[in-house]
């Protein structure tokens, strides 16, 4: 990164198709602007996001990882986001253990009706990541 350009955190955003991805679509339809730092990967359900995907993203150079699903209790697959919450909470602990700031990993619950909330989640995450600087603890050298 050159000295002139400000640091822009790179975020991988796993969005469940039924709620959060639909919510981000609504942000688009409503033309709500937010930073482009987060690149979405749409998944069926937040419960299908393996902790391995999160670590893989850090390994490949992500500065932050977001997993966003339906509101708790509203998962299209009934209980996927419960699984996600329980399992991915452990990722935070693991990150801390490995010396990565746990705040680099975030979960949110954004419904299909919450375009503005989705934009805000991304804005907040980007702002919270800035002071942390680039993540290089888990980042691998390019093969």
């Amino acid at each position, binding site marked *: 990164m050159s000295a002139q350009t400000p640091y822009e955190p790179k975020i991988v955003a796993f969005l469940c198709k039924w709620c959060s991805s*639909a919510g981000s679509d609504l*942000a688009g339809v409503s033309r709500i602007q937010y930073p482009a730092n987060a690149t979405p990967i749409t998944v069926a359900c937040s419960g299908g996001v*393996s902790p391995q995907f999160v670590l*893989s993203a850090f390994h490949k150079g992500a500065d932050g990882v977001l997993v966003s699903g339906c509101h708790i209790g509203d998962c299209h697959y009934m209980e996927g986001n419960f699984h996600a919450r329980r399992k991915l909470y452990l990722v935070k602990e693991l990150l801390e253990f490995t010396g990565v700031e746990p705040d680099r990993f975030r979960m949110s619950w954004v419904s299909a009706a919450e375009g503005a909330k989705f934009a805000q989640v991304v804005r907040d995450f980007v702002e919270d990541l800035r002071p942390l600087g680039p993540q290089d603890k888990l980042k691998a050298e390019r093969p």
Partner: protein
Amino acid sequence: MSSGKRTGVFVCHCGNNIAATVDVVKVAQEMAGEEGVVCTKDYVYMCSDPGQKAVIEAIKENRLDSVVVTCCSPNLHEKTFRDNAKAAGLNSFTCEIANIREQCSWVHKDRGVATAKAIKISRSAVRRVGRNQALEPIAVGVTRRVLVIGGGIAGIQASLDLANAGLDVVLVEKQATLGGHMIQLSETFPTLDCSQCILSPKMVEVSRHPKITLMTYSEVQEVSGYVGNFKARILRKPTFVDPETCKLCDDCSQVCPVVVPNEYELGLTARRAIYIPFAQAMPASYTLDESACLGLNPIVCGKCKDVCEAGAINYDMRPRSEIVEVGAVVVATGFDLYGQDNLGEYGHGKYEDVLDGLQFERLCSASGPTKGKVLRPSDHSEPKDVVFIQCAGSRDPAQHCAWCSKICCMYTAKHASLYKHHVPDGRAWVFYIDIRSGGKGYEEFVQRTMENDEAIYLRGRVSRLYRENGKIRVLGTDTLSGQNVEIDADMVVLALAMQPSTGTAEAAKVLKIGRDKDGFLAEAHPKLKPVESVTAGIFLAGTAQGPKDIPETVAQASAAAAKVIGLLSQPQLSHAPTVARVRKAHCTGCEMCVDACPYDAIHLANGKAVVNDVLCEGCGACSATCLRAAIEVINATPLQMNEMIEAVLNF
């Protein structure tokens, strides 16, 4: 990497919607450099007819085996482009969409930044499609029989519609008779036609319909299977009376020594242990209530059996289980009133002359305990001042139910009006928060109650009531005049909130369908799928799904029936093939996926996980749980996910 592929990437300008912020030509150029990409194109409207034709041509010309269209949200045109790929001879699952409009061009202004993000999104789709498999929808057979749970107006209407369309129906009702709450009503708003008169003929029709198997006094205990192929176990409780032989002579209940409160009359009268709920009960037969009977034992009592000339009573009947196979289920399990114990502050359950709305219906009903005379339960005198309290339990998130029960404004107006018709010199006082009278002829009805029937409407809440000198003293405020009001009432009627019935809670559990935060059954979409549950093949009707009045219930029941008819009229059903697949060599049979699956779609056979393709919905919970990557969802495998992650990080 995805070598050996022949992928085409088609970048849409969407007029200026994408092209204004994203350099579409650059996106196309970048994609041309991706491994496996042999053709790229950009076009002003890819979804237009010429756009689609261009895609088809390019597929044929370049002998493509997979396609990425970078355009708007897959919710809009995934199907369009998959159908298009199919038209060009490809498998529709070898087409993926990259959303660079809603998730990119519409939410960013900086062209450089937006273009860079669009490239990442497009590249991730290219990587994904590189490992997509050609799939065919999974075909499953259908059973053309429907299970309807609940024999109130919703279940009755749905059953009749289904049966009249030629489908076999099994209607299961917990009580000894059809009718639900509607049969307890005296008159119905806003037309004041008698509830019995409009419902009884439908009950008769159900019982005589050759396509309907009626199972009263029965409960659904277990449901397994999936859309088109459910299996339900139904518990048939013994009535100890053979309905075919019973002559309805009533001799049995005349001699029965046991007296218990009559549920149908909401405890305003008593019944015997052997009883018929009401004269028009359907099936027309007596039921021996085992829990009240002295012992089903001729040595202990046996009076009813002795007196029954027809020989219809049989103490040896036992509960039976029956299995029925059905293709779809309609849940019409109705509501309960928000229980009297919950509203101690209004003296309900404490003072005899504080009634709930259904009890008041019985007092007004010609077939009720007072033969249609409005009399106080305590001393059978005619009440001259009756206070009706609306929103009793409703719209009170702090202490009771947060929701509006929707029908209480109207039925209170009806009660006030009926009361004045019965007792013209009496006074009807109505406490309300506001009047919600949306519906055809509803507002006019409320106005008539105020103007013609001279009901006195007071906007405000009742703070307290207590018994004094044989009256009930009601203290409240009229917020319009700012005055405190004290009324010495002879009777108080509470418009209790509607809450999901216990049967609704049980049905949700048995069927594994969701409930909303209030406990009503959750519809698949609040606007666009109001009669579908989230589980395919299970439909909702009536107040089990949320408070509604009779016309709305009937409409929803007919809508549910129409949905079932549509579903079961297909010769075969198809199921998305993007299901979980086990990599046998890696599976150790640890069963973690079995526990994680919300659909019970995975079981163990010979120490390895096996997926039932038809039950699997492809959510990926199993895959995210497996420690050995031994189970994965086809076309969303961990390998594909990792490549997508690489793509979005420029790794």
